[in-house]
């Protein structure tokens, strides 16, 4: 018995070893180093001197930091809820279709999801191209014929990039929602329609409550994803007024890689960590209070 227990332990250690190793070397250790680095004036590569809280003070005094925080939160607001709601709506529509039509329609929604961000960037910068973009026909209808440089007009930048992001990623949400919808037994709907419940009432009383767990899952996934936004914003803003539309990861990149100030980069990274933890805790509390009900 004692021997088998030891064997079990040994097996367990062998099985968890790769994960624990990666976790320790690539997560715990860099995080610890990051904290240390944030108190120095080190360049990206090389040593620096201890400077206490100077970096933190400098970050909080920097106008660009508040821009970055706001733009990140703004982007999260513009993507998380729309992509969740749109995902649900599309799923409801797609779920009514059958066979080949359904596959085809589903493919149309899911195909963008598998494209690398650079491809999405190329396609949409062409769609919105100020001179030759086909979307300018639509824009002209609203502006009375004037073409608009969407990614160079600051108030339009975040909404457009958010729109493109929703276009890109919503397919994944659609699939999760369809799965959720299929798990709802058809008998419940049949019973409800025999009772004469309207379609809207059916949705509100049956679909929505039963799909809620999936909604939470989708929103969690989206929240985690969008807080870490960098790629699209970097690509679409490149060459223009990058400061006005900067997001947090980009701000880290700017300090550490463009300005070669590793200490400052680490400081901002740590603050991003904190922001993400705050969001996670809020999310967790929200889920728990729902669960207890």
């Amino acid at each position, binding site marked *: 018995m004692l021997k088998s227990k030891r064997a079990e332990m040994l097996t367990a250690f062998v099985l968890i070893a790769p994960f624990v190793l990666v976790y320790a070397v690539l997560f715990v250790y860099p995080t610890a180093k990051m904290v240390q680095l944030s108190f120095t004036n080190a*360049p*990206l*590569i*090389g040593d620096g001197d201890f400077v206490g809280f100077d970096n933190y003070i400098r970050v909080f005094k920097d106008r660009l930091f508040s821009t970055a925080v706001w733009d990140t939160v703004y982007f999260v607001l513009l993507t998380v809820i729309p992509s969740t709601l749109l995902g649900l709506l599309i799923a409801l529509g797609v779920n009514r279709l059958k066979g080949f039509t359904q596959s085809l329609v589903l493919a149309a929604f899911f195909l963008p999801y598998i494209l690398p961000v650079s491809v999405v960037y190329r396609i949409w910068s062409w769609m919105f*191209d*100020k*001179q*030759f973009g086909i979307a300018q026909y639509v824009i002209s209808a609203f502006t009375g014929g004037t*073409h*608009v*440089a969407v990614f*160079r*007009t*600051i108030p339009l930048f975040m909404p457009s990039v958010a729109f493109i992001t929703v276009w890109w990623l919503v397919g994944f949400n659609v699939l999760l929602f369809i799965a959720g919808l299929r798990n709802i037994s058809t008998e419940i709907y049949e019973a409800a329609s025999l009772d004469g419940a309207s379609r809207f009432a059916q949705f509100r009383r049956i679909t929505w409550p039963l799909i809620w767990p999936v909604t939470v899952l989708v929103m969690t996934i989206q929240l985690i994803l969008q807080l870490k936004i960098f790629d699209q914003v970097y690509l679409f803003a*490149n*060459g*223009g*007024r*990058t*400061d*006005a539309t900067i997001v947090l990861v980009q701000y880290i990149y700017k300090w550490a*890689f*463009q300005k*070669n100030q590793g200490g400052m980069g680490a400081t901002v990274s740590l603050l991003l960590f904190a922001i993400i933890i705050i969001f996670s805790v809020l999310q967790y509390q929200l889920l728990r209070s729902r669960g207890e009900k």
Partner: protein
Amino acid sequence: MIKSILKKALVTTALLTVATFSAQAKDTIVWWDFLGGGDGVRMKAMIDEFNKEHADTVEIQATTLDWGTPFYTKVQTSAAIGEGPDMMTYHLSRLPLGVSSGALSEITPEELAAAGIKGTDYAATNWKAAQVGGKQYAVPLDIHSIVLYYNKDLLKAAGLLGDDGKPKGLDGAANWDAALAKLTANGVQGLSTATADGATLWRIFYSLLNQQDGQFMTADNKFLDGANLDKAVKATTEMASWVKNGWLAPQTEYPASIALFTSGKAAFHINGVWEVPTMVDLAKNKKLGFEWGAVQLPTFYDHPATWADSHSFAIPNNKGKEVPAAKRKLVLDTIAWFDKHSLEWAGGGHLPAFSPVREGADFKALKPNSDYSTLAATAAFDPVSVLAGVASPVYDAAGNFLIPAVSGDLAPKDAMDQMRDDLQGQVQ
């Protein structure tokens, strides 16, 4: 079609395999540049020529990266970890910043002498701009600037073309404005330039500022100090008026601004000399539906002055990587080769830095370079500072403040105030 593609693919694969195996015998030089547009075409041709000439000894493996901040970020980061290239192109305007970040390797007088590179073969100011603190960090390749491209057909129709085929009566801001007003008609706009590109606007702005003897940055590190601010506001206001009056489209991306001109939808185009080959090639292939020319930027204010910069070659300071002396010699020999062959580079619109080429008869016969070669005498280089140059805080500020000012989102005075404060705050 498919068959020929397959064939090509097979050949390419075979060549790649051969190249990998034979690479051992040959020296390779890893080369990075940021040369897009017509420049890229020229440089690629020159590299091909170099590789052909040295087929048995050296091969340049060139990569072209995104111009500006992305390029210089990559250079700086990779040099810090010893992953930079063997050599690269570098803007002399950025040299002080590059040296201060430790990304550049000093080139000693002995090394220069061994490769036969002599300071006396370059214009004195140009050669000095390749130094920081008396040490050589780069070898100039060219001097380049912005010029005014024009559509002869449209100008002729508007009565703005002289008998010599050059535009007439453009000097003085009022005359220029009148010309733009006249040319803007029937779906044609007077001017096209990359109004969404901070670097392009910076070049025009800096020219207009220098035409009034305005100083962007004084020797004691003061940005837009005193009367300089008013001159800057004046320049910005003039630029913004082009957009406001509908002569120039705001928020136009770089490639689109060229397309507007080459498709005949803009009469004038302000851009770097590096787009000369684009026009030359289009005209040669009969894809340009009009006669074109290029001249020095008009004189808006007191006297001619045009922004200028210089491309050079530099060696990154690859940390932790010992470069054998023989390799450095090879790199410097390569640099010398390119400077000696820079007549071909001049075909890309530039003024060669290497005096024997610049002063040679072949260059003097080169068109349209000779039409704007006068600008060399009135060149206004970026301030010499660790805050200035391509991919510097000054260029960032140009993107952040000039773009909205020109497109009318920000009043010129406010833009200049904010730009000054932003930059002044970065002085240490």
